[in-house]
């Protein structure tokens, strides 16, 4: 480890929960020892759970003492000792957000997984041990951000796509038109030229990828602004989440889906009308069965204004919506929104993927929803209890396949569009989801990664080092809206080309022909029952 430095009895070691807002004014370290095992000198009672998870290694001979890393770390992890002219770290506090690594002009910082010394154990994983200790320490529910990170098998990764060879030539998207346009909303019962019958409002997506609900408060003002600009540029939509629509963003009315959740934050007629579509949030894939929760740390004056709740309170949006206890009650709210918007917009209903999704989706469509969103268990969140994020809900692939199948069997598939959400990682996932029956997909985590997210899972703390999930004034400028918009546009353009390529190689020239076209999918390494549940065939057959 040569020049690296660790600390032992460092007074700056602090409980991460208390670091909010305090960036300076902490006393310098006393006699940092260069011995890893110096940790033993921590009094166990004080720091029972503070075995560092990461280790910040710095090559001091290359460090030019510019202190960029000190200024950039929002987690009170890095400090400068002027007496020794050395930059040190409080390893316990490091969350591996990699901000300092990226910003260090000499690239002399490396974050390593800290070998805490726990013996390898196939049953008691380190994350479990850490969780238990932290709970014993605090008596609290472990809160986290982002999506389920446990190694459950992925169905997307066991599905492969077909390609045309000889008998059915593929299409070159560079030479021939390739249609990705998708209309979301209820379709007419029948169509006869000249007498279209009742026509329902639909929204047009130039690419079947929309930005998932992320509320202002959970994410930064700039990031939401970036999502809005990119959605507008690419002919798709962003979604307010349940935190209301900031007055500055009302100008994006043609590119926004506004959400109505149980907390009804920021919901008034202007809000409903400042939209392309309205969405009722029943559930979220990251935390099925429980409600929204914006920790009080993140409720500043601006959030308080848009949500109409006191500053510093937890913004609670419990499940259920206390006026919805049945499909009939859901119908009441769907039509209340349709009345308030004079039937000019599709109304979407978003649920988490759970065991009975197919039957629930059928009920939702019969209740009058024009779009149903099925959010799988890999979906992200700004804040959720880890135990729920990691253990509740089902993969979107199976929920989607079953729901699509069910609606077809019941002859009501045309009455609503389906958006699949929760862990869509690349354009192949998009294509597979559409072939499994989705009309379009929502992405959130992919979009966050596109603008710098390093998956550190600290979103609930409101200190995001990349300025994505924070509204702290000093962190906000780290993600300028135009930069976010540029990167998001880049991501969608890349996916657009890839989706066109994949359609072309399957011999298709429009996304319409892919929807629910499970013949284009094959399973690898799946059981008979899994293939049947997904409605796809075994590879080779």
């Amino acid at each position, binding site marked *: 480890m040569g020049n690296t430095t660790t600390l032992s009895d460092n007074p700056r070691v602090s409980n991460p929960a208390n670091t909010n807002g305090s960036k300076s004014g902490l006393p310098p370290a006393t006699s940092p020892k260069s011995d890893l095992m110096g940790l033993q000198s921590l009094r166990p009672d004080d720091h029972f759970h503070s075995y560092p998870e990461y280790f910040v290694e710095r090559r001091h001979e290359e460090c030019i003492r510019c202190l960029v890393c000190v200024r950039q770390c929002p987690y009170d992890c890095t400090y400068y000792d002027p007496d020794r002219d050395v930059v040190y770290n409080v390893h316990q506090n490091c969350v591996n957000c990699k901000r300092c690594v990226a910003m260090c002009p000499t690239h002399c910082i490396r974050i390593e997984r800290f070998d805490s010394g726990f013996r390898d154990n196939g049953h008691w994983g380190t994350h479990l041990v850490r969780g238990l200790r932290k709970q014993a320490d605090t008596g609290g*529910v472990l809160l986290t951000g982002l999506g389920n990170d446990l190694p459950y098998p992925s169905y997307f990764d066991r599905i492969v796509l077909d390609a045309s060879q000889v008998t059915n030539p593929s299409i070159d998207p560079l030479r021939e038109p390739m249609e990705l346009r998708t209309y979301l909303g209820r379709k007419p019962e029948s169509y006869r030229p000249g007498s279209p019958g009742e026509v329902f409002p639909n929204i047009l997506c130039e690419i079947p990828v929309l930005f998932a609900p992320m509320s202002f408060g959970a994410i930064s003002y700039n990031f939401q602004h970036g999502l809005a600009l990119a959605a507008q540029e690419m002919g798709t939509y962003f979604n307010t989440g349940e935190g209301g629509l900031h007055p500055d963003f009302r100008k994006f009315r043609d590119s926004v889906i506004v959400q109505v959740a149980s907390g009804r934050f920021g*919901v008034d*007629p*202007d809000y409903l009308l400042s939209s392309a579509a309205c969405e009722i949030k029943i559930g979220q894939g990251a935390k099925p069965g429980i409600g929204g929760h914006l920790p009080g740390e993140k409720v500043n004056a601006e959030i308080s204004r848009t949500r109409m*709740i*006191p500053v510093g309170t937890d913004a609670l949006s*419990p499940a259920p919506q206390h*006026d919805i206890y049945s499909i009939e009650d859901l119908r009441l709210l769907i039509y209340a929104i349709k009345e308030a918007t004079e039937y000019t917009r599709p109304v979407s209903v978003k649920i988490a993927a759970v065991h009975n999704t197919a039957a629930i989706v059928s009920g939702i469509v019969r209740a009058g929803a024009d779009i149903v969103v099925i959010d799988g268990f890999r979906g992200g969140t700004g804040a959720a209890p880890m135990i729920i994020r990691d253990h509740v809900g089902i993969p979107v692939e199976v929920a989607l396949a079953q729901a699509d199948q069910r609606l077809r069997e019941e002859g009501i598939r045309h009455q609503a569009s389906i958006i699949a959400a929760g862990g869509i990682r690349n354009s192949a996932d998009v294509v597979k989801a559409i072939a499994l029956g989705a009309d379009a997909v929502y992405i959130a985590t992919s979009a966050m990664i596109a603008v710098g997210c390093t998956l550190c899972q600290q979103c609930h703390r409101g200190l995001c080092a990349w300025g994505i999930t924070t509204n702290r004034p000093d962190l906000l400028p780290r993600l300028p809206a135009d930069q976010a918009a540029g990167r998001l546009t880049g991501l969608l353009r890349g996916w657009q080309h890839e989706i066109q390529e994949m359609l072309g190689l399957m011999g298709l020239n429009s996304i319409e022909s892919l929807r629910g076209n499970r013949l284009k999918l094959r399973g690898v390494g799946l059981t008979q029952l899994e293939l049947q549940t997904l409605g796809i065939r075994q590879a080779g057959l």
Partner: protein
Amino acid sequence: MEEVISAKDLYYRELNARIRQKARAGVEHIRLTDVQGHRYIACGLQFKNLQLRVSGVPGEDLGAFMDGPTVVVENNAQNGVGNTMNDGRILVHGMAGDVVGYGMRGGRIYIRDGAGYRVGIHMKGFKEKQPMLVIGGRAGKFFGEYMAGGYLILLGATGGSTGPVVGDYCATGMHGGTIFIRGKVEEYKLGKEVKAFPLTPEDESFLRPILVDFLESFALDVNIFDFDSYQKIVPVSTRPYGKLYAY
């Protein structure tokens, strides 16, 4: 000039379209007759000067998302009165069902008699924009649940029947706003995050004009100025669940 729309044999969608049409044409006084459970009356309407009189019993979500008009119901009302209402006034000459004023953000609702469960839940408030919901009679469980702002006033004075003024789980999860209840609320009914206090002279002078207005609105003659029997319920913590989580 008051214009009349008969709701007889009209589906709610048609009835509401006609109301909007008249309001857009500048009609300021509309009387609805033969209303029989028609849903969404005045839903989302933003006409500040519109006055709507409803003869008959309206259906669910009367005045949902409403943003300005005044609605007077001559009878009882159904569930969901003033759901997520933003501004305006609703007067119900009778009782109302469940979930009155859900997520209400502004304006006033007066219910002459009692109301059902989950009244005033998720009410909001910001600075001078504070909604107010006054109920002359009694209310059921979950009164003021998750309340975040505004005023919720329960008088226990009208509606005839006797019994406890409010049900269990009163003000559970409340973290903002103020509840005034006339009558006894047993300690066990209150959420842990709130406390009940006797009224201060300021509270009395705040309440007096509201009570006078309420009585006048319904031409009632009952004594509800016995401020000793009132309690004021306010949150003692803005983060009722703050300690529940480990970061």
